[in-house]
């Protein structure tokens, strides 16, 4: 091999190895930094609901509330976003006039280009006041169901998990849509034409060919959307109101903090390594969580591609 080739090959391979190593490095550095704070923690890290890290000599922190709020908000967003994304993906692949399908897809992708802080500020300053009457109505009429009950930020219906979930759902639409669209587009034409030849309506064609073909891809795409929701930081920091001294109680009208929003909201405490360690420990849990969800999503989509 010529020297130029050897150098170039090693250089590119090195870059590949570096990227592989990055994920490991992230894990290692977070663990190393989290250990001192975890050792000094006076509460159980996994089951406690308090978060008092202001005094580095008396660290009292647990992630249970963060974990619950993170998952609750993300699942709410996913439940809203999944059917709408499915509809958009079907619209773009099966319903939109062919000449317009591309520009329409571009419009949906534009949603992904809006910086998340803009979504956050729009969410709390503009959208939340419009959404509050709906939350209030649900609370008044269906309040006996715990999830619509008066939460811990009552009577404020704005900085709640409900608002956060709806805004987050909007942010997930482009991700789930673009991945599902790719899968739906690859539905074998022969199957579609076969269904049409049998006299199926357009909806029946979709139900019998497109959906079964794209199902796993759509589920994989939703998992990746969930991964994104779990890690979304600034939009939730801006929207979610953190009620002092109150814990999460399964109501959509609760406030609270997710892993990411808790870290971002308390950046001031990063002035001493002990307190920072507590946040790094919670960041580590978030890392593991998103890693697992992305892993699952990717392997579902990967299987699809291998066919």
């Amino acid at each position, binding site marked *: 091999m010529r020297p130029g080739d050897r150098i170039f090959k090693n250089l590119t391979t090195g870059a590949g190895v570096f*990227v592989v190593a990055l994920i490991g490095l992230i894990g290692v550095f*977070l663990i190393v930094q989290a250990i001192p704070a975890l050792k000094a923690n006076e509460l159980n890290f996994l089951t406690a609901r308090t978060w008092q890290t202001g005094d580095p000599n008396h660290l009292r922190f647990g992630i249970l509330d963060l974990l619950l709020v993170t998952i609750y908000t993300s699942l709410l967003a996913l439940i809203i976003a999944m059917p709408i994304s499915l509809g*958009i993906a079907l619209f773009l692949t099966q319903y939109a006039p062919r000449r317009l399908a591309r520009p329409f897809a571009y419009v949906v992708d534009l949603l992904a280009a809006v910086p998340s*802080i803009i979504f956050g500020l729009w969410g709390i300053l503009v959208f939340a006041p419009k959404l509050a009457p709906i939350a209030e109505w649900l609370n008044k009429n269906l309040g006996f169901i715990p999830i619509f009950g008066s939460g811990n930020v009552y009577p404020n219906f704005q900085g709640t998990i409900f608002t956060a979930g709806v805004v987050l759902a909007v942010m997930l639409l482009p991700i789930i849509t673009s991945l599902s669209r790719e899968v739906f587009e690859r539905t074998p034409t022969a199957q579609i034409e076969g269904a049409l030849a049998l006299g199926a309506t357009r909806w029946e064609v979709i139900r019998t060919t497109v959906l079964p073909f794209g199902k796993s891809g759509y589920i994989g795409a939703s998992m990746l959307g969930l991964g994104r929701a779990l890690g979304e930081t600034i939009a939730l920091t801006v929207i979610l109101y953190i009620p002092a001294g109150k814990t999460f109680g399964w109501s959509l009208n609760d406030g609270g903090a997710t892993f990411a929003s808790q870290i971002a909201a308390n950046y001031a405490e990063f002035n001493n390594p002990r307190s920072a360690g507590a946040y*790094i420990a919670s960041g580590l849990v978030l890392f593991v969580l998103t890693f697992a969800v992305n892993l699952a999503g990717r392997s579902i989509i990967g299987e699809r591609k291998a066919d």
Partner: protein
Amino acid sequence: MTSTLSETERLASPPAFQQVSPGRKAKNALATVLVWLSFLIAVAPLVWVLFTVISNGVKRIPYTNWWSQDFGSVLSDEVGGGALHAIIGTLEQGLMCAIISVPLGLLVAVYLVEYGRGTRLARITTFMVDILSGVPSIVAALFIYALWITTLGLPRSGFAVSLALVLLMIPVVVRSAEEMLRIVPDDLREASYALGVPKWKTIMKIVLPTALSGIISGIMMALARVMGETAPLLVLVGYSAYTNWDLFSNNQASLPLLMNNERATNSMEPGSVGFDRIWGAALTLVLIIALINLIATVVSRMVAPKKK
């Protein structure tokens, strides 16, 4: 006579599925309505967000001092001043991030397409790039904090932010460059080898230039995305209302950080100074992102391979 003629014109048997039962028709109509509706549901917030940003943002940005001054000399609730300090920070941090992640990302893409095809390491790399693209920005920020600030003992700075953004930008650059390199026809490579050109030179002179236009637009999209990131800014650099050109020391503002700072310190009453500043900064950010995309389109058209 006329009756026999119509007899011959009639089909032997009517089409079997001429009639669709009302139930099936209704289901089909319902599905059509729902699918159209979901598209409109997606477009509505986009239009609403853009309308909010533009209608509230235009109050500040037409004035020259918005583009030529910082907030250092005005009080936090005083009308006036500009976002120059934040624009400088956004551009510097984004540029530094691109300087690091573009070569790195391109090397990885070249490895995946040219050298690693089908190998185990290439599969692992592709997989890790996918995983990296799912790492939340706040986790990237914590990693750089643990590495740069705690372990190496270096100060919080705009450069630390750039490093965190690199983690977010690399996977996007790799994926888009990989895609572009893959569609370069093998005939081109083989023709070059046949002339005795070494592989590395073939890649540098033939493959990369052919794919360049697509790679550039991918890079610009990635850059636009990281410029709007906020989470790493909170952990890795402090806000300053004064212009700071130095990427390596002291606090440095950027547009998202400016917005977050105004939100945290100022009244958010519509029409108040803080409110106007936030949407002014938001519109500036959107304009910068749009401008970068426009440049990307123009440049990639210019370097695109000529078609006969």
